[in-house]
């Protein structure tokens, strides 16, 4: 009862408090809460924007460099080649070669002002050299202090490891930013930049008036700081809340960081265009993308063009809308002139300059996504995605842009031709190719599909396809190692294998025929299935599979005899590894793309030296390679215009012509080509009519470096068709290394009646 009384008196008291006092009290509490809320929100905004700014400011994606071109007397390079290389790197012709990155022609010589570059082993200063040429080679190189024995061009930057949302950038320090760009940005985008607090009501008012007068949106009211904030969060929704947040963050940024820091961050961050899935952020990358130049090397008109693009990278896309962009560029030049940032003569000459963006946007900062996949694969495990996209690593790789471009070009062109000739639906065929140095395994070119610059399914690394007859050299190598030689008789007759479990298997030759007894060399050269299965079963399937495992580093997936005919799926890069064993003279040299990784300061973090493992005795490799050269000259490779130029190779076709393969090598390069369809349907192409043709086209660009055989094995002349010993002057003769030729039967009528004379001639160095 007492309790109830007390409660009543309390409610009476409340009822007595005037209403306005209650209102004030509520107001106070609400105000306090709101202030706390706003304060908390500001702290949150401060944290967010400061972290982003700090994080992004020094978040430098790893840069990836191609192999630099080595210049030395005797290098196979003519003036035209070198000039093309220089232009690829963005060097410009300039009669005074005043600045690094320029060159000029001087008769049959080139004077080059080389750029400074921090190479793997040491930094090289910018310097002038004169390169003269003789007979398609470099004759001499002269530098400031006389003859130069060896010097290299700066390497092409072929990409960077940007974060998964597809942004790429080249981070510049304030010193690396041209004055005109910094001042021009303020003049065009934010005249009050140096005075405002991150946000400018005056700017908004001015923009409003200008836009009202013009009847369209000509000026934005956002400060550079606001634009930077907007760019960080990639949000284009125009809501009041977003705008307020943007203003708040801009004010915080302005309070926390210097104007120079904010401007530099803007220059490194702002969105300037799109190249496929790769967003072009920052002026450093923009200069490379649009002009194939470094920012510091840009001319006045080029800086003005970049300034035009900021306002609307797709509306003012200089590739798609050159006239519109040119008009805006000239308006910007007028502003720069009016503000005294450029003088009258600069204004006049830059106004008359064409828009000048590089014809092929993708050549600006060459971009090879398929090769980059291989780089990524090699670095996986050592560097996580975060390290690659933020720590400014410098990655030196093996790619040769010249080879990459010519291989990619040859593939696209030849596939188009093939589809036309065969009346196939355009774009139905796909292809992959890998080219590597035959001695070191370093990859010079890697093509993952017919469109080289598009990220997508990388067939060179990931398309596992049956290799068909490409496997046969492993069978014959094992046979040679087991004591057979290239003239050993083998039998090409029907065979049926009946395993303990499963169905019996009766392979057939490509043409359904069989040829009886013939020499081993012919069975390989003509890619005869029946003879190969017989040889394989005689030598031992297990032994052959073991050899395969030694050569590529993993066991075959198919344990059955059909393995002998290539019912084994491999990716092109793995086939390259297999053939690398032969091309290198008997060493397993896994294909590699990365040479070294350096940190931001140029200190090496990891070296990736050559790896090699001897897998085949040199004389057995030499025998096999001769057999593969004969395969080109007289066997399944004979349709190639290079068949008799000293190359070794093998074609391969999988069942029903689904996969068309070629693997081959000369003295310096080993290549693998695959042609097929993504849905694995029939193409109608054999190894010779498909992949070999692509290889021919690839080879026509760089030519052949004929195979050289090392060692002193005696060569014996035998008739290709029969394997009988014959005179060199007889028809259809090949020379093969055979240790004991006495067991060979002699071809009647073309025998060795003058065998002694023949031998004497050989002693005196006569070849025939």
């Amino acid at each position: 009862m007492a309790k109830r009384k007390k409660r009543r008196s309390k409610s009476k008291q409340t009822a007595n408090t005037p209403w306005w006092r209650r209102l004030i009290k509520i107001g106070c509490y609400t105000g306090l809460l709101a202030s706390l809320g706003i304060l908390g929100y500001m702290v949150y905004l401060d944290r967010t924007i400061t972290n982003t700014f700090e994080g992004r400011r020094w978040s430098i994606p790893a840069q990836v460099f191609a192999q630099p071109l080595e210049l030395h007397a005797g290098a196979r390079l003519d003036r035209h080649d070198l000039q093309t290389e220089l232009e690829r790197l963005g060097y410009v012709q300039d009669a005074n070669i005043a600045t690094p990155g320029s060159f000029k022609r001087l008769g049959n010589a080139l004077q080059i002002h080389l750029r400074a570059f921090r190479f793997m082993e040491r930094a090289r200063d910018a310097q002038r050299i004169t390169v003269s040429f003789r007979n398609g080679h470099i004759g001499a190189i002269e530098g400031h202090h006389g003859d130069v024995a060896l010097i290299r061009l700066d390497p092409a930057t072929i990409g960077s490891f940007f974060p998964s949302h597809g942004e790429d950038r080249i981070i510049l320090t304030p010193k690396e930013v041209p004055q005109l760009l910094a001042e021009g940005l303020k003049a065009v985008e934010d005249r009050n930049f140096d005075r405002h607090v991150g946000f400018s009501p005056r700017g908004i008012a001015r923009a409003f008036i200008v836009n009202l007068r013009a009847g369209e949106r000509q000026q934005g009211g956002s400060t550079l700081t606001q634009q930077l904030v907007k760019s960080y969060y990639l949000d284009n929704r125009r809501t009041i809340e977003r705008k307020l947040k943007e203003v708040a963050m801009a004010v915080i940024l302005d309070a926390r960081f210097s104007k120079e820091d904010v401007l530099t961050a803007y220059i490194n961050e702002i969105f300037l265009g799109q190249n496929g899935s790769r967003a072009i952020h920052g002026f450093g990358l923009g200069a490379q993308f649009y002009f194939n130049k470094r920012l510091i090397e840009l001319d006045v008109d080029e800086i003005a063009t970049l300034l035009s693009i900021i306002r609307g990278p797709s509306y003012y896309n200089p590739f798609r809308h050159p006239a519109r962009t040119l008009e805006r560029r000239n308006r910007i030049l007028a502003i720069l002139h009016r503000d005294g940032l450029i003088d009258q003569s600069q204004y006049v000459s830059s106004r008359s300059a064409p828009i000048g963006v590089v014809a092929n946007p993708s050549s600006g900062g060459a971009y090879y996504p398929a090769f980059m996949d291989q780089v990524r694969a090699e670095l996986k495990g050592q560097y996580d995605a975060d390290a690659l996209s933020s720590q400014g690593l410098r990655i030196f790789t093996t790619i040769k842009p010249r080879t990459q471009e010519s291989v990619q070009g040859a593939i696209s062109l030849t596939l188009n031709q093939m589809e036309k000739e065969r009346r196939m639906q355009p774009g139905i065929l796909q292809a992959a190719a890998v080219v590597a140095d035959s001695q070191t395994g370093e990859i010079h070119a890697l093509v993952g599909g017919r469109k080289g610059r598009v990220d997508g399914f990388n067939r060179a690394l990931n398309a596992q396809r049956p290799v068909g007859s490409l496997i046969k050299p492993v069978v014959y190598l094992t046979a040679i190692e087991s004591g057979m030689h290239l003239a050993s008789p083998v039998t090409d007759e029907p065979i049926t294998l009946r395993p303990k479990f499963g169905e019996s298997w009766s392979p057939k030759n490509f043409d359904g025929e069989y040829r009886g007894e013939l020499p081993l060399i012919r069975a390989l050269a003509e890619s005869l299935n029946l003879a190969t299965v017989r040889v394989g079963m005689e030598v031992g399937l297990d032994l052959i599979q073991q050899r395969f495992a030694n050569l590529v580093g993993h066991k075959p997936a198919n344990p059955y005899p059909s393995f002998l005919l290539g019912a084994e799926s491999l990716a092109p890069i793995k086939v390259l590894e297999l053939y690398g064993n032969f091309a290198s003279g008997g060493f397993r040299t896994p294909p590699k793309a990365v040479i070294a990784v350096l940190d931001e300061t140029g200190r090496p973090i990891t070296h990736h030296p050559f790896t090699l493992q001897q897998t085949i005795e040199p004389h057995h490799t030499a025998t096999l390679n001769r057999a593969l050269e004969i395969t080109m000259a007289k066997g399944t490779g004979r349709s190639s215009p290079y068949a008799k130029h000293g190359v070794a190779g093998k074609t391969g076709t999988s069942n029903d012509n689904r996969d068309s393969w070629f693997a081959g090598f000369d003295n310096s390069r080993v290549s693998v080509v695959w042609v097929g369809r993504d849905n694995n349907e029939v193409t109608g192409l054999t190894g010779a009519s498909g992949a070999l043709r692509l290889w021919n086209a690839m080879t026509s660009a760089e030519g052949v470096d004929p195979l050289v055989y090392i060692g002193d094995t005696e060569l014996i002349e035998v008739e290709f068709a029969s394997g009988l010993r014959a005179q060199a002057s007889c028809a259809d003769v090949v020379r093969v290394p055979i240790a004991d030729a006495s067991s060979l039967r002699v071809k009647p009528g073309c025998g060795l009646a003058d065998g002694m004379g023949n031998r004497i001639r050989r002693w005196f160095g006569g070849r025939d």
Partner: protein
Amino acid sequence: MIRRLTPLVVLLSACTSMPATPPTVEDRQPPPIERDPVAVADSRDEVDRSTAATATLLAAAHDAAELSDHDSAIAYLERAVRIEPRNAELWIALSDAHLAAANLAAATQHARKAIALAGADERLVRQAWLQLADIREAQGNLSEARAIRRRYQSMRG
């Protein structure tokens, strides 16, 4: 490393017209079939001159090795091999750099590569095998090292 590179560098830089170190034209064997005539520059002259280019890298590798900077020595020599991939002498130097860096497996394989490339050039064959003997010794395989040296030290280089 230093021991082996010094005479090499002196030799290479002093006289670029010395007998070419890679398999020379004379060592080359006839091809297995009649090849079509192709416009191939006579490489003899070119080989000598690119040897002049790689000599500068051998010298740089030598300097790096003197400072026990084996990674740099290897980097210089690999650069040289990229220019002349079939020059056995460079592979021997590379093997030696790996030996100095205690990468014995790599040293062995590089020496084997040199042996394979040396072909019929007696001086190179000897040099490559003696390199392998040094590696065997470092591996503690003294008997094999001795056997190789017995066989190749008497050979005239």
